């Protein structure tokens, strides 16, 4: 199994995440879709790293960094979702229409 197999899976993961982000209307599910996109990126980074001609670690380190940042991002995102559910009683982003022209 070559590099391209990993890249196809990673791109699919990313695309499913991106599609889900645009199709879903629930704040928490959108957050999950972003995580899916980041996982796609992680997979491609690790695959690229493994297939470097010379021994390399940068891609793997990058993937670890992304995992750490994604955890922080999920925390921030959930905090914001909880705050807005308290004032609106819904997580559906379609209902958030106070800010407009």
């Amino acid at each position, binding site marked *: 199994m070559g590099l391209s197999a990993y890249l196809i899976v990673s791109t699919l993961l990313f695309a499913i995440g*991106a599609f889900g982000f645009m199709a879903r209307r629930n*704040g928490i599910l959108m957050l999950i879709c972003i995580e899916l*996109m980041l996982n796609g990126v992680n997979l491609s980074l690790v695959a*690229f790293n493994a297939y*470097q001609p010379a021994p390399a670690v940068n891609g793997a380190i990058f993937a670890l*960094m992304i995992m750490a940042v994604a955890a922080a991002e999920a925390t921030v*995102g959930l905090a914001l979702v909880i705050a807005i559910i*308290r*004032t609106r009683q819904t997580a559906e982003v379609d209902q958030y229409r106070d800010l407009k*022209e």
Partner: protein
Amino acid sequence: MNYLNDLFTLLPEIVLVVLVLVVITADLFLPRADKWMLTPLTVFGLILAGIACVLVWGVNDTVFSGFYRVDDLSVFLKMVTVGVGILSALFVPSYLRIRRLPLGEFNAMLLFSLIGMCVLCSSSDLITLFVGLELMVMPGYLLTGFAKTDRYSNEGGLKYFLLGSFASAILLFGVSWTYGVTGTTRIDAIGQALSGSSLNPAMLVAVAMLMVGATFKVAAVPFHYWTPDAYQGAPTPITGYLSVGPKLGAFALLIRVFAEALGPVRADWLVVMAILAVLTMTGGNIVALVQTNVKRMLAYSAIAHSGYILAGLAAFAAAGSVAVQRESIESILFYLAGYALMNIAAFSVVGMLQRDTSRFGGLRSFAGLGARSPGRAAAMAILLLSLTGIPPTVGFFAKWYVLLATVDAGLAWLAVLIVLNAALAAFYYLRVIVYMYMREPEDDPAPIDASAFGTVALALSVIGVILLGVYPGAILDVLRASAGSLF
């Protein structure tokens, strides 16, 4: 390897990190009545960080095995960052106090975001760049939703967060493929790997993704949809910070990634960048024309200003010689510094008119301000003239240098569009001045928030706007050295 020396070059960041810890600890122990002391504490620490920046000026060294670079470009951007921090720390407190929002948390979030900007400006590796970027924007999401019982603030925060994270993911995809094609995450090594050949399809995908992700962060049209909502929802003086701080960082990212790593293939992204610049300034200005809410109007004007700076980047890409390339980078840096001075203050004046929390900074609340508060009205008038680009203000020279760069780079049509846009923008900026001086006040005028810190910061901003407008030569040498560290 001399790690002590490496640590010395990190002095501004170290000062900021220590300051965050001190602020958080002090916030724990200060009684409620003395919380205001956090503001002078923060400003004092930021001044120390500014002095630290001066100390590392001219070091021009790559440290920590090539992950971090302290060159004049990054130090200049850090100085602007510190200035942005000082102004924000002074403008925001009274707005928060009126709404009973916690000051300690705000200062900590602001400082974390500033540290992220410093890391971003100094990164010479895509890994550091990404970590700095996220450290910069995440406190920004929280600051947008800072008034957590306020519907608007909540909504702005969540929208900013969702679209910002989406853009980060797209940017990362581009970064990953760049790594795959070039086999390195080091920014200068990417440039070397790409030079001398045209882009292969995989790298083309990567550049497109990088472009989308990065221009999302500077609110370029058509990736600007989060901007007006986030800027309108956030507490007003915090919007001033958001419209300058993260944008400064995003342009540092654009310079690092596009001018440095993708510099050798700039012919491939020139056209897209120029088109984005035109769309951004025109789109931002046209929508700003029809706004009656001054806060939302300034949000769209912030988009338009991104367009002018992107034009500077397009000039870099089109430049035929190194001299013109340097000139365009200098013009971008000058614009960023000038924009930082005028935009935070302009948003904060709107915030000062929201002393009564039920009011929403509409155009009518500016009616008769010239008679009710001459000092603030004059300051706002100067800031608006500067945003328009009328001499002798910093806004004029900012646009002037970008114009010069675009003309020298052979993009005369872009220069013409910049001038037309500046004329268009004059309409909505001057409308506020007309309201301030030529309309009678409302029957029940909005009370004005006249806190000492805010007044000091407003005076500092206006003095800066005029000084740099009368004598822009003051920082030209600094700009030259900064832009020079790229070449």
